[in-house]
């Protein structure tokens, strides 16, 4: 990873985190303040991203939406990861039959399209942010599980592990000294990669009207809302969409570089 790339990545992350933690630094306004008389303003100096149908400042909403969208992404990924790690560890260390059983299970989960699973989950949780998180989390878990499983297996069968065994190190020491630390970096990369996808999935659910309800400035919801005025007020669709793409792409790039630099 070249120095310039590092710098860009750093700036990117920094910006995202400021937007997520202290949005008011970047956009002092109130993302929920409506003002019908100001509705549908085209982008201008005053409203860099224009205003929406209720006269809310789109820029402010996009910035303040970072937290929501990111939280959903993080939470969903965390959930997916949690399950994945659990399954992964069980397959890697558990007896053969558990391994094969879980593999089957994963295959099943794999065979059900992610969105179908999400829809099913939402069908009995009802729409909303938390259901969206759960849905996305669960539907991304199988993918992670496979990766983690293979990763752990390679580690457990590595010469590094053998060497420790020969030196008479206890199972726990091997896990603590080698397995966990060497897995963390992989997980980190996976998570960054995952967040991007999670954000997209969540926004897709919002698009179908099953995610975070308005007026919360969640990007997907904003998009779903703005697409009605596609022909009339393009800025309502373009900017939140761009935000999603940026964060998803950014996260992926970070993840990739992380994986690269680790190997």
């Amino acid at each position, binding site marked *: 990873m070249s120095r310039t790339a590092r710098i860009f990545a750093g700036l990117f992350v920094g910006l995202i985190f400021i937007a997520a933690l202290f949005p008011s630094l970047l956009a002092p306004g109130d993302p929920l303040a409506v003002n019908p008389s100001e509705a549908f303003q085209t982008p201008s100096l005053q409203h860099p991203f224009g205003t929406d149908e209720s006269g809310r400042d789109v820029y402010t909403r996009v910035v303040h939406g970072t937290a929501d969208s990111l939280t959903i992404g993080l939470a969903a990924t965390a959930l997916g990861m949690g399950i994945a790690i659990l399954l992964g560890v069980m397959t890697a260390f558990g007896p053969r039959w558990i391994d094969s059983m879980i593999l089957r299970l994963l295959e099943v989960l794999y065979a059900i399209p992610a969105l179908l699973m999400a829809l099913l989950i939402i069908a009995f949780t009802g729409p909303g942010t938390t259901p969206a998180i759960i849905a996305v989390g669960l539907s991304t878990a199988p993918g992670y599980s496979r990766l983690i499983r293979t990763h752990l297996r390679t580690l457990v069968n590595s*010469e590094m592990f053998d*060497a420790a*065994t020969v030196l008479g190190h206890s199972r726990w020491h091997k896990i603590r000294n*080698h397995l966990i630390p060497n897995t963390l970096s992989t997980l980190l990369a996976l998570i960054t990669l995952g967040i991007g996808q999670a954000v997209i999935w969540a926004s897709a659910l919002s698009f179908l009207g099953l995610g975070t309800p308005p007026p919360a400035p969640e990007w997907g919801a904003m998009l779903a809302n703005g697409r009605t005025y596609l022909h009339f007020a393009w800025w309502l669709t373009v900017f939140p969409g761009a935000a999603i793409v940026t964060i998803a792409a950014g996260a992926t790039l970070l993840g990739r570089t992380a994986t690269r630099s680790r190997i």
Partner: protein
Amino acid sequence: MNTPAVEIQNLSVTFTGPDKTRVEAVKNISLTLTRGKALGIVGESGSGKSVTARSLLGLTGGHVTADTLNILGTDATRLTEKQWRAIRGTKVAMILQDALNSLDPLRPIHREIADALPGSRKHRKRAAVEALHAVEMPAPILRADQRSPELSGGMRQRALIAQAMIKNPAVVVADEATTALDTRLTRMVLDQLAELKDRGIAFAMISHDLAQIAQVADDIIVMRHGEIVESGPTKQLLSDPQHDYTKQLLAAIPRGVARFAPLSQVATFDDTTATFENFKDPVDVREPSDISAIEVHGLSKAFGDHAAVFGVSLSVPQGSTLGLVGESGSGKTTTARMILGLERPDQGSVRIFGQHFAPAKESERRDLRDRLGAIYQDPLASFDPRYTTSQILINALSDGTTSRSRQYLKRARELLDLVELNSSLLSRSPRELSGGQRQRLAIARALAPTPDILVLDEPVSALDVSVQATVLDLLDRLQLETRTSYLFITHDLAVVEHMSDRIAVMTQGELVETGTAQQIMHAPSHPYTQQLIAAAPDWNP
């Protein structure tokens, strides 16, 4: 015939690194290849021998300058890529070292061999089969349709030769064509290469192994750091080497060198910070012991329906070395893993100093583990990539409880001393160390719990000759000083002869013969052993 096929004057090849640094891989070397003669280019890693070889095909990938670069009459100093392609394969061909990826694993070998030929696919395939036949490929028609992963190492190497010869070129360059091959295969390939000369081909053989080059080459040039240090007719160069480096290389070859006789007299060329004063002319002070450090009985292991090891019994007397030789797939590594308790045997048992070791629960034998250490072919893979030298050692010294605590630092330094490594390396990551240094570090770690036994699985096969020499000497010294017992596993007869008191020979999972080094090397009784010994290069410095 006497006009040189290839003539090179003051060839230099330079590479430009990503950060604009220019590296001169080859510095004004000159050489000539003559029809019907073989030139051997010997050198260790980084000597620039491969780059030199590739400059004959315009495939260096670097910037090439030469006063003369004459290939079969054409001046190759300024050829276009297109013109080079006309030369490659047709006039000059290259035989690559056998690696899984030297042949595209996704294509049948007949296409890998013949896709450069004109004509219909049918015609090309026939040509490929013929070529395979010419290199004595068993069942060439069948093999032609298979892909490299389905072939044995020997078959692949044959295919690679066939590939080079398919357009019967006038010049052939063999780059490490015999490296990583088992003894008998090496012999076979060397014979085939030797034939090339008889077919009037101008032949260049690149290798790090002087012994093998000596089998084929009429003239030899010795390269180091991109320069030719010495060159001359094979006999002369071997019998009366001028340059110290050449001497060192020759001395480093363990073949026929007496047990414990040092292989590395001259330290100046070694890449380690070794000091050899304490190991000038050692004496074997060991008195034979009747305690057996390792006692293996009827060990068997099968993977699926394939029996990897079958009924192996052996014992290693305390303080002595048992050499375990065999070709790849003979089951020696599996045996080692079972002895180390990394693989659970299907049958049989392992005893360490009379105590039951395997098969057993890990918890039951943990205390025995302190008496047992292991060294692998690729030390790097056995280190945690995140650890520095000191962390590796501390982790080992503390039984894995810590990798930081300073209380072990003193001991860590002592270990480095023991393996002749400078303690300035403590803060380094193993990745920054040279091959030799890594192997020493691996040994140091293995010695941390002061074991009485070391199981060494191909500990030197990845190393350059001179480095191998220093490591072997180190091992010898340690044995004399600590009376550690070795189980020394290798495919290299020369090494095993030099290192072992007794030798056990394995093939196809079975142990066919055991005896003193003398017996095995000079009076083998089992036919397989006889073949093996016969195949070894019959050459002494």
